[in-house]
């Protein structure tokens, strides 16, 4: 009897589950179908007309790059300073944002004895910092400071501080408290406990997240350049704005950007593998 009732219950539960999965699936399909048809209608060019033109532009710049011949490599080298500027934006932003994130994380985790009343406040601050799209801060600062790499740097750093702060505080939550207790038994101050008990435990994970963020920030800095923040993005905007004739330069920037992003990705995933072992920082 009891078994039969249990079986019945399991069956109804399974039916519910299947129903929910079906509803979920249908919902996703509905969103995709209606979304694509709607966005196709809203787009200034339709999908089908665009499809035939899809390879026109890449084809055009490849042809122009081909025609440039060996000079193409010279072009790539000539854009290296702009790429370096983008990398500088990303690195400085990650360094400053990362430093701020360490402070925020140390102030927002109960596990490392942060000051209680401050914890929820700092967490909300980090939420807001993460939510701010970089574009908005960058545009505002470009308006006040003028076109320069600094607005992009500040914008990226601001977002980085919030994003890394959250990840860092999650790392803090999982550390072993014994070293902290040992140190407080010797009468160590809060800063000393952070320095000698917390930091050695979290450093590899922090560094690994830092490198992951650096990858993301290189991409973000390149994009922000396009709205006037200098670096490779600005060069790209210039060459694209010229339209026909600058295809070889555009292609050179594309290649440079692609190679740099790949290199940084590979380098950082290799270093992250060394730091946290399994090669995955998630």
């Amino acid at each position, binding site marked *: 009897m009891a078994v039969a009732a249990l079986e019945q219950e399991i069956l109804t539960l399974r039916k519910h589950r299947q129903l929910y999965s079906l509803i979920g699936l249908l919902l996703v399909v509905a969103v995709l179908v209606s979304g694509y048809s709607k966005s*196709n209608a809203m787009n200034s060019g*339709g999908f089908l007309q665009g499809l035939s033109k899809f390879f026109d532009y890449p084809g055009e710049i490849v042809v122009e790059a081909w025609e440039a011949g060996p000079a193409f490599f010279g072009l790539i080298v000539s854009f290296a300073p702009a790429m370096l500027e983008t990398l*500088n934006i990303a690195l400085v932003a990650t360094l400053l944002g990362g430093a701020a994130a360490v402070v925020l994380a140390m102030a927002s985790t109960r596990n490392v004895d942060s000051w209680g009343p401050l914890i929820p406040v700092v967490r909300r601050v980090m939420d807001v910092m993460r939510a701010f799209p*970089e574009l*908005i801060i960058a545009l505002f600062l470009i*308006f006040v400071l003028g076109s*320069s*790499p600094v607005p992009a740097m500040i914008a990226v750093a601001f977002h980085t501080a919030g994003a890394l702060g959250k990840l860092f505080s999650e790392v803090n939550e999982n550390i072993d408290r014994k070293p902290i207790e040992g140190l407080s038994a010797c009468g160590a101050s809060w800063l000393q406990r952070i320095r000698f008990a917390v930091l050695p435990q979290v450093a590899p994970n922090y560094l690994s997240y830092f490198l992951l963020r650096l990858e993301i920030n290189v991409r973000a800095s390149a994009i922000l350049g396009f*709205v006037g923040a200098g670096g490779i993005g600005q060069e790209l905007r210039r060459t694209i704005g010229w339209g026909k004739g600058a295809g070889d330069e555009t292609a050179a920037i594309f290649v440079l950007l692609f190679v740099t992003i790949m290199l940084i990705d590979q380098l950082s995933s290799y270093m992250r593998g060394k730091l946290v072992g399994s090669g995955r920082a998630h």
Partner: protein
Amino acid sequence: MATDTMEPAVTHETVWRTVRRRARITVLVPIAILAYLTYTWFAFDVSALLAKSQPDRAVILATDSVAYKVQVEKNFRRGEFKVAIEGERTATYDNAELPDWVDLDGDTAFIDLGDGYSVEIDGKTALFAIPGYGVIKGTATDKGVDTVLPNGPAPDWVKVDPRKLNVRPTLDRRLQVTKTKIEVHNYFGGWENFWFPFRSPLYGMSFSQLYALALSSDRMDPETSNLWFIVDEFLSNPDWQHGDVFVALFETIMMAVLGTLTAALFGLPLAFLAARNFTSSTFLRFGTRRLFDFLRGIDMLIWSLIFIRAFGLGPLTGALAIAFTDTGSLGKLFSEALENIDNKQVEGVRATGASQIQRYRFGVIPQILPVFVSQVLYYLESNTRSATVIGALGAGGIGLLLVETMKTSRDWENTSYIIILTIVVVILMDQTSSWLRRKLIEGK
């Protein structure tokens, strides 16, 4: 003892070497970072930037985004007064219904700016009385402006020029005299005409009045119901363009949702091809992995530029750019998750005589579902932000609207309105996705 256990002997020497290396790193790393920051200080030319920055623009933006001005203008060519919100033709007061701080009488006017500040306009002369300073007299002539200041040094809020007199003793009061016109600006807090346009019959109605109107059966417009009339008047407000802003926000969200879902749908099957334990062909695996790298490496910036060329402006362009980049990122993440699954579960399902499809469905999918769901939701959240940036590159949506309102830099309150809405949407998406994540993965 050390020899007994065959452990390498730790000598005084090795300990010191380690300690010294440690100490060197602790000193050298901060020095290297500091040196790098110093280098970038010069590479970015920060000092020059600070020198030519325009903090006054930030002040203008800040005041203008929380305040609006009502301006009293006397144009000598037309010889008449005009009182208008933000000086716009569509928001001009009728001379019979002027605000009570303006007193017009033919060719003269008395404008009370509060706290003892007042402006008297008589013919082509404006007298600005400023408490604690005196009266500034500006007269427009055929050649320019004659200014008479009280004795003593001129304060820095008075800008005297033979062609233009500009007096702004406080942030919210201003007088401008040129040879063609006199303008007095009075600033008020808040966003003007936010709900309804100046000319609308609904202008200045309170919320309870609107509520009563919506329920009343007397139609304002015989064609439509009152509620719809109110909504329509609100959405088509020409100063704020609520309708357009909402459409743009919707476009941005659509880009993020469509792009992420598409990426997830294509990334998952491809991930099976890239995972060592599911695809034995090295060639296929290598090919799929390079495809992921290629899609990711090209980056959203380049994809959007290519798609804008092909498909024009709109949410489709942004959705495809996000979908292409993230098929690479999600595919890579999924394939790593697939390589780390526990094979025991798959073998257990196989032992019951399950087919290949059933093994995937009951042995593999349940294991990677949490990773799948949480990563897709993370990407959805971050793509909402990315979609604003792609929009600014030219794909449309709220990003483009923001860039355009900033470029015209006429009404900063519109810019702040868009900024606030964008941030609210991003925070909402963030909250929704973390709520869903909790619900789906931790089971409530």
